[in-house]
């Protein structure tokens, strides 16, 4: 068990080093920081001196080591475009994205899991069939179109909800939250729905497929043969086996939520990290791009690690295999 955790930890460190290397190469080979920092009137000697002072003439790996060490200390450098420290830029945008993503994920799980179980248990029913056709359309409608539809319906036609920004926010330390005001919640509804709907269809389809698979396995058939009540078979035997992959689903979906929050934030002008990343691409702000890459990779690695650990904790079979 300890060996397994250690192995996964070492792997994660290597993944992070690889991503840091990629980010650093991006930083190093795309665009010249000196020409970004200096104007036309800076003399060539001054440029050369600046280059020497900043250590840009050092060997590649010395620079990479310094880059990694600074990242570890939380020093992410400065944006080419705004000249602000990137760490602060990201930190001020982080709460918006995390709140949006969490609410979207909750929507997708709270609606998606029961819907998936229902459609798996009654695959031929009319309701199930309509839900399935609905999800097919849901998968086919791009996130930004869902966003536009919701804005049009609830923002323009009905005028119930605001269609851009975060509304009223409350500052708690460095965390600016929109979860504590009615106005903030009203602003959150449409973006969270947009982001959650797509994930919801995925959750539902995965849970349905898994549940149908489990219902076909031998131990369920045996339970049926033993005369165990249907209720117990479905919600005890089958559901508990279905729920194990759901942890992976949550892990995978986190990635999806982060990625699609770029689109959602763009549609609703939600001031989160996705919008920052999109701006950095538009303005070729390489430092912001590479730091975003590292931060996102860090999220992914941590989530994957947690998922793996939870797996071992929940699924007894993995522990047995480990000890054999």
């Amino acid at each position, binding site marked *: 068990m300890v060996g397994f955790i250690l192995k996964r930890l070492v792997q994660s460190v290597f993944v992070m080093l690889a991503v840091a290397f990629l980010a650093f190469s*991006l930083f190093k080979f*795309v665009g010249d920081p000196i020409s970004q920092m200096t104007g036309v009137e800076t003399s060539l000697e001054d440029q050369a001196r600046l280059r020497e002072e900043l250590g840009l003439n050092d060997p590649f790996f010395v620079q990479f080591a310094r880059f990694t060490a600074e990242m570890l200390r939380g020093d992410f450098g400065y944006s080419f475009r705004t000249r602000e420290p990137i760490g602060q830029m990201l930190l001020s945008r982080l709460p918006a994205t995390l709140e949006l993503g969490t609410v979207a994920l909750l929507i997708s799980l709270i609606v998606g899991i029961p819907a998936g179980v229902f459609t798996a248990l009654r695959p031929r029913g009319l309701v199930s069939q309509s839900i399935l056709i609905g999800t097919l359309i849901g998968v086919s*409608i791009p996130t930004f179109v869902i966003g536009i539809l919701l804005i049009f319906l609830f923002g323009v036609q009905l005028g119930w909800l605001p269609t851009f920004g975060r509304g009223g926010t409350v500052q708690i330390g460095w965390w600016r939250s929109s979860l504590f005001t009615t106005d903030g919640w009203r602003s959150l509804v449409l973006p969270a729905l947009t982001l959650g709907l797509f994930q919801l269809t995925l959750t539902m389809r995965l849970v349905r497929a898994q549940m149908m698979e489990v219902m076909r396995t031998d131990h369920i058939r045996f339970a049926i043969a033993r005369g165990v009540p249907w209720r117990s078979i479905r919600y005890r035997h089958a559901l508990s086996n279905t729920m194990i992959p759901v942890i992976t689903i949550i892990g995978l979906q986190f990635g999806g939520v*982060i*990625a699609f929050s770029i689109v959602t934030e763009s549609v609703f002008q939600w001031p989160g990290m996705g919008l920052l990343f*999109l701006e950095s691409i538009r303005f070729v702000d390489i430092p912001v791009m590479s730091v975003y890459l590292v931060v996102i990779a860090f999220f992914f690695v941590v989530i994957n690690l947690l998922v793996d650990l939870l797996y071992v904790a929940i699924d007894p079979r993995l522990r047995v295999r480990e000890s054999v």
Partner: protein
Amino acid sequence: MTSTGRLARLMKSEGVWLFSRSPAAILAAVLTFVIVLGALLAPWIAPTNPYDLASFSLIDGLLPPLWEDGGDARFLLGTDDQGRDMLSSILYGARLSLSIAAMAMAVALLLGVGLGLAAGYFGGRFDAVVMRIADVQLALPAILTALLIDGISRGILPREAHDDLRIAVITLAIALSLWVNFARTARASVFVERNKDYVQTAIMMGQHPARIMLRHILPNIVGPLMVIATVDLASAILLEATLSFLGVGLPADSPSLGTLIRIGMQYLLSGEWWILWIPTVFLVVLVVAINLLGDFLRDLFNPSLR
């Protein structure tokens, strides 16, 4: 076998039989066919050329579709603010969207199947490296990969070169975010088939590895590959539309469907609904139709799901 014999056998096959009994699949096939045909023939059937600045004038700006009050017989689906015919814009936009998606899918197919077959066949370190890259790629959502590649290319290429190579960059970005599924399927099939007698015999007969992979192993997975290709074509169309919508895809002077929707967003609050909603509905119908076809193919090649 003669070609007529083959055709007769095809017409009697299970696939055609199932197809003729699935109204959803028939509808989807017809819609896809009509849209693809319209996109292919756009230069000949579109009323005007939206790229030709001389072919439209501001006087015709913001005309509603024909069936609304004030519609003009020349413009079936109305015009945008510049007086461009919406029908022509959509046909040309679909042409661009579909060709980028098809090219990206083809590149992803070649790259993925090639790497997957080779990884499975040669195994060892090559396999490990390819599959680790695939794992990382799979963890990163496609849209993120595509955005990153676009961003990097903006940094590397000078501005003019980037504008010229826009279509190539987008195609490559989409292809590189979709190849993993192909690679995994191809690799898995190699593992299943490699130790079977016919492959071992072929190896003993001294046939070239490339020939064994392409002639003996590849035919086993034509079905699953077709399913992935269909579903990925839909994903590629969505990816391109999303990138263009975000404003990092194609520029406004050569609009794809996504660009048209982005432009239409400006009219969300005004009465000119057709500028936004007609391209949007068109895009959604196209993707739903292709996904329905993909679902049908999946059921066809996986009888246990029927």
